[in-house]
């Protein structure tokens, strides 16, 4: 079924003519995407610096006076929250979602451009409120990114007075921004696909972003209500999450609330959030792999169903974050089972990526390096998830550095590998310039090898039993001193990886001006975004006439075809082999 009614209406397009309407209050999805992207990268750099501060303390304890137990927890908390929400979610959906959805499905823009603009400015407000917490008395909250009550709002936790209030307010604002953007993405994908763009012809990038957005729209409300309820507990003394308790020797007035209820709500959001980040990455990496291997993605239909299945299952696994939370222990059976079931569609995706490479004709371009690096890091991170998802193994490993290493591999390093792949892959389209290949490759090797040098050893620190969120380990009877050497080496790797991101920043900004002019469709890609008349695409994307789609997005190396790729908007010739038509 195709919905082209909206797509065909070109008269309703707004017409930006001043600098302000073009670049500031812009309603063009491409400009909004770049605004989202730059803001996310900026705030992500803040979080990167925070992680370096943490690593300095862990690698070289007893050395720095500017990191104390109070500020350490603030760094931990802000690093985590910024990376997950304000960088990854915003960059993948607000950034790439915005840029790619209309272009890849052949639309002129999002269906609600004005709301799209509001979404960005609301997001910016949430970032400002978040960063403001660095400047209030007591500083930002140090409750950990999970913000578990009661401690998040009680004395004894950094930023329990102002920091937590700003954090909760910022999250609420972010969710409003996400909802405006998210409704837009979903509606656009469902209603504004161009002629011939059936759902099963959509590139996997769109499937990933679309499914992730649906997850977000269903999951973020759980975070919103928990933020509101915690705010009420904090500000007017309700007891949603607060039982009767004694804080700092004084009985407080709270009574009857449940701290575990917050955890259920938080993870009902928090687990889908993992896939809100992962699914767009899965989609984009699929397209990068296919394009640079000159081969169709292997098992497209299976890939689509795997994305949808993972998205669905992600709503019934949340309590695997809570095996040792004190919830009813019998929940462990159910959530361990659902969690390990999710490994099946996830494994299929990994197999299909690798099988896409098999019998391909692989160009080792910078995006491809990052994409292959992703398969490695994601395989590693996914497999360690099988430890933590299996309820019994959580007994020794929960709340240790094994968890930290696992989730950084699977939802830190892996999506970021894809983000780099995606930035390099679409850079010529977005900017009309090529980046420096040499710098891109250097960036890849530092990032890929460096992050593995951080996180592989970190799993072993966790297996030893070192807890996460500890300012210092001090002396114990069971942790050998050599663990400190390992920690120091992790810190050095982390600093190198952190610094090597300067290569990336230099590359993308330098190339903006001095990069070679990009050829039209330099990678020989099939999907629609590369088939626009102008590079970068102009406002409205398609000129007078929307493209007509005739085939799926993966007609690479079709036997008998003149070139090794056939764009989606090329009609099927009578003699052409059409086995690949998956619709």
């Amino acid at each position, binding site marked *: 079924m195709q919905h082209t009614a909206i797509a065909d209406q070109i008269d309703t397009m707004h017409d930006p003519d001043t600098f302000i309407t073009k670049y500031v209050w812009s309603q063009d999805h491409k400009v909004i995407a770049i605004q989202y992207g730059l803001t996310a990268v900026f705030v992500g750099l803040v979080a990167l610096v925070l992680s370096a501060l943490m690593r300095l303390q862990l690698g070289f304890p007893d050395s*720095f*006076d500017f990191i*104390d*137990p*109070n500020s350490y927890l603030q760094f931990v908390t802000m690093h985590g929250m910024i990376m997950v929400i304000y960088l990854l979610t915003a960059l993948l959906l607000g950034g790439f979602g915005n840029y790619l959805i209309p272009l890849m499905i052949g639309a002129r823009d999002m269906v609600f451009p004005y709301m799209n603009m509001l979404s960005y400015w609301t997001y910016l407000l949430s970032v400002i409120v978040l960063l403001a917490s660095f400047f209030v008395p007591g500083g930002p909250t140090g*409750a950990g990114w999970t913000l*578990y009550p*009661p*401690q998040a709002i*009680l004395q*004894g936790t950094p930023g329990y007075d102002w920091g937590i209030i700003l954090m909760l307010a910022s999250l609420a604002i972010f969710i409003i921004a996400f909802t405006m953007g998210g409704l837009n993405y979903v509606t656009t994908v469902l209603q504004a696909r161009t002629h011939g763009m059936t759902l099963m012809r959509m590139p996997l990038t769109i499937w990933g972003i679309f499914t992730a957005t649906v997850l977000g729209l269903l999951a973020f409300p759980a975070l919103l209500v928990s933020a509101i309820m915690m705010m009420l507990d904090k500000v007017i003394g309700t007891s949603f999450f607060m*039982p*009767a308790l004694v*804080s*700092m020797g*004084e009985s407080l007035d709270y009574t*009857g609330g449940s*701290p575990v209820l917050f955890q259920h709500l938080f993870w009902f959001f928090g687990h889908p959030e993992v896939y809100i980040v992962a699914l767009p990455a899965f989609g984009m990496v699929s397209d990068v792999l296919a394009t640079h291997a000159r*081969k169709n993605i*292997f*098992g497209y*239909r299976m890939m689509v169903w795997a994305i949808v299945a993972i998205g669905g299952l992600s709503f019934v696994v949340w309590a695997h974050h809570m095996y*040792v939370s*004190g919830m009813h222990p*019998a929940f462990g059976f159910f959530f*361990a089972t659902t969690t390990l*079931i999710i490994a099946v569609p996830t*494994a*299929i995706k990994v197999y*299909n990526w*690798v099988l896409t*490479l098999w*019998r391909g*004709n*692989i160009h*080792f371009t910078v995006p491809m390096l990052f994409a*292959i690096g992703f*398969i*490695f890091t994601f*395989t590693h991170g996914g497999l360690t998830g*099988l*430890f933590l998802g*299996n309820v*019994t*193994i959580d007994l*020794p490993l*929960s*709340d240790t550095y094994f968890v930290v290493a696992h989730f950084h591999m699977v939802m830190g390093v892996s999506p970021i590998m894809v983000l780099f792949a995606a930035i390099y892959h679409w850079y010529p389209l977005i900017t009309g310039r090529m980046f420096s290949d040499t710098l891109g490759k250097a960036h890849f090797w530092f990032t890929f090898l460096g992050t593995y040098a951080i996180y592989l*050893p970190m799993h*072993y620190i966790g297996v*030893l039993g070192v807890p996460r969120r*500890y*300012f*210092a380990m*001090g002396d*114990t*009877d069971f942790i*050998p001193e050599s*663990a400190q050497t390992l920690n120091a080496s992790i810190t050095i790797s982390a600093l190198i990886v952190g610094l090597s991101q300067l290569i990336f920043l230099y590359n993308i900004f330098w190339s903006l001006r001095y990069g070679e002019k990009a050829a039209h469709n330099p990678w020989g890609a099939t999907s629609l975004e590369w088939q626009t008349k102008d590079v970068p695409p102009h406002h409205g994307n398609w000129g007078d006439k929307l493209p007509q789609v005739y085939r799926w997005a993966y007609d690479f190396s*079709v036997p008998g075809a003149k070139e090794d790729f056939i764009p989606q908007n090329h009609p099927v010739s009578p003699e052409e082999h059409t086995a690949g038509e998956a619709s």
Partner: protein
Amino acid sequence: MKLAIALVLLVIATLLFHWLSPWWFTPLASNWGAVDTTVDITLYITGFVFVAVNLFMAYAIFRYRHDPSRRAHYEPENKKLEIWLTGITAVGVVAMLAPGLIVWADFIDPPEDADIVEVVGEQWQWSYRFPGEDGVLGKVDSRHVGPDNPFGMAPDDAAGRDDVLVRNKDLHLPIDRPVKVLLRSKDVLHDFAVPQFRVKMDLIPGTVTYLWFTPTRTGNFDILCMELCGIAHYAMRGQVIVNTGDDFNAWLAEQPTWEMMQGRIAGDPSIGEGQYAVCSACHGAMGEGNVALNAPALAGLQGWYLERQLQYYKDGVRGSHKDDIYGQQMAPMAAMLADDDAVRHMVAYIESLPAVDMQSSLLGNVAKGADHYVTCGACHGGEAQGNYALQAPKLSGQHDWYLKRQLANFRSGIRGAHKKDNYGNQMVLMSRALHNEQSVNDLLAYLNTM
């Protein structure tokens, strides 16, 4: 090409790192060998997949690297292959999941005859309660918690009278007896974790959670709080000390019951005044301290703190370190107090002395000191007034030169490192957050303003 080699090398490096690494689970000390077996099964299966997928990928990208004379193979899907791969994966998943569920069923179902002990968590300390002779834990409620009733025992519940209360970070347990540990928190979330036992579970205020295990060898095993509980989370430590049955019983018999705690007599300042004559030689007639004799101010300090310190001196917990010159002077003085009653009388007298004003002896940046104090204030209070619930003494009204030396002593382990020094252990960890003399001076300059 380079990438294919890199992938192969990374796989080899990962395997070597794993095999050569001295970093793995600490030796088991409980019945939960099945947990380790479950980990091993998962490790072998996932390890195989890791090696297989990555080596296959390395081969694929080497074998099918770009060649202008060749085209990629066009094969949209291969149903048979996909079904096979799905099937094999499902089998692997079942092989990992099944043992996990079986062990979990065992873990959540403690044996009928398990001993009972309650672990109480609060910011940032552990304490323990045994049910006593009747085998029943008395009722508790957070509303009853106070300085005289740290466990929140219900005053009129007869079952609680013989409960054994251990207000100490060390939990003794007998070997080879299954124990069901009931977990209770007074304030925020905590997590009772003992790495050698392979168990952990959160403590939740308002709820009682549990776990069980059987210690299988004697020795000391660290208890770590593994659920973020605030600024001093990392300093919330304890130990399980596994004894033979006899040693355990002897230890348990020494611990006070709730009834005994209620029956303690109050100190009499008039008796204490007589005893204080000896102390005044160094600490001054009004307990104001004396820099020349390195004696701190006593006036203004809380009684519970003085009592604990005097007991520590008597028991060799404090003042026994070979480098603690002044502590060594104090220890024989404290030993002159014959029994607990004498200590309490003395403390009652010192508590009656009015606080004195202090002269500052050093220069520091008050604003910077205030920043450093944020962490300290979590326990010692915003006005450095101290807090019984956190067992943190008052700092204001104390000589800065004394505080400076104590901080240095904590840092170097001269004070606080003794295994039985409950809260000193925490200060050892906390004191290491400040690293140079100027920072310490800044902090003390700030304290002098209070």
